[in-house]
């Protein structure tokens, strides 16, 4: 297994690091490989059926992700309080 480095932020783009702090952006976290199966079986879905997120999405700036990873999103929902949503990373 190779280790993924966190993506480099071009100089002058300091603000990119503040993107996850924005009120519109919910918390994104990577689902570990061990938990992947659990998530998929709970959803009764395969990776290809999940909603997508591009690898270079602005909200993923602090996560080291590769295509095929599953991202767990903790949305603040006006009806359910908190709701969890899953997206699979695709190459953009």
């Amino acid at each position: 297994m190779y280790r993924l480095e966190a993506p480099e932020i071009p100089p002058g783009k300091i603000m990119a690091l503040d993107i996850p702090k924005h009120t519109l952006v919910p918390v994104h976290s990577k689902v570990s490989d061990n938990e992947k199966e659990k998530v998929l079986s709970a959803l009764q879905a395969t990776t290809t059926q999940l909603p997508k997120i591009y690898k270079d999405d602005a909200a993923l700036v602090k996560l080291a992700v590769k295509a095929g990873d599953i991202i767990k999103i903790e949305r603040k929902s006006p009806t359910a309080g908190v709701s969890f949503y899953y997206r699979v990373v695709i190459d953009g």
Partner: protein
Amino acid sequence: MRKEHEEFVDSFEGQLPPSIIAEIKDTCPASVTKEQLKEIVELTLGLYKHCRVNAGECVGLVSAESIGEPGTQMTLNTFHFAGVSEMNVTTGLPRIIEIFDAQKEIKTPMMEIYMKPSHNDLEKVKKFAIKIKEVVFGDFGAEYVLNIFEQSMTIKLNKALLSERGLSSKDLAAAVKVKSKGFNMEVGNDFLTFVHKGKPEEIRQLYDLREKMRPVKIDGLKGITQVLPVKRGDEYIILTLGTNLEAIFEYPEVDISRTMSNDIHEVYNVLGIEAARQAVINEVFKVIESQGLNIDIRHIMLVSDIMCITGAVKGITRYGVVSEKASVLARASFETPIKHLISAALESETDRLTSVVENVMINQPVPLGTGLPGLITKLK
């Protein structure tokens, strides 16, 4: 509520949504016994399961009707900001169409800029607002003087604006140097004179030069044509006409976490797909609220989920989400049927008839409600 009771309620996490768990905790009296609590939670769970959407329920259709009917009552007007005559805002049906179609160019792009607490007094906010407003070369021209004999044009500069921006006539000359190719420029303290190089031809060329130089950006942020500092609650915010989130985030005075744009594509580019989804919901809800209509937010959430499912924002148009449909007949039934059918024939596409519209067309049971189980059980 006692701690062990709270833990008991918490054990239902995953079966009940967090808001309901919190509500049980808040509303149950402290004197409740363990048996009573168990009954309460189980009844709630039963009710919650009963309220959930059944498998095979056509939620999209319900959403379409629930948004469509109140939509017919919306006004076609734009309204004015109190106090500022030139700031119109698109609302009502035109704005809804704009959002759901995910149009690239929206009619009134706007930003709400929040400032950090350390920069939140009127003077600083006003100063910042002036700083970010885009000024073009045309704004500096106070007077244009044409000398027909010498074939020259003198532009007298607006001194007040120059000193407000801290610029000199030399800065302006440098900015328009490329645009004024073919002319000799004489730079004065408060004027610029252009003379045609070589043989003077037509006076028209000087007019053309003027028009060519007018839109050259001199200072401020691109796209921000108007600024308006207003008080909201305890703090001052800046409303702008025109958006440029990426550039505004570079200023240290700005509170990045709350500054918003109403351009969905810009939110997507700067903040990502999840933020765009939330922005669609917020923007639609704002319109609906301002019109005094009552649409359940779940319908809007469903539509905006669909728009963002591919990882990019897609409008509800034949180029957007409809083009993603697997079935030829379903695509053809939306708009431009002949185009879809011909291209499908050319590519020899197969229609698996797995969705609703195509089954309506061929007079077969649709996979909805009681028609669905045939799809999810294995038939031998």
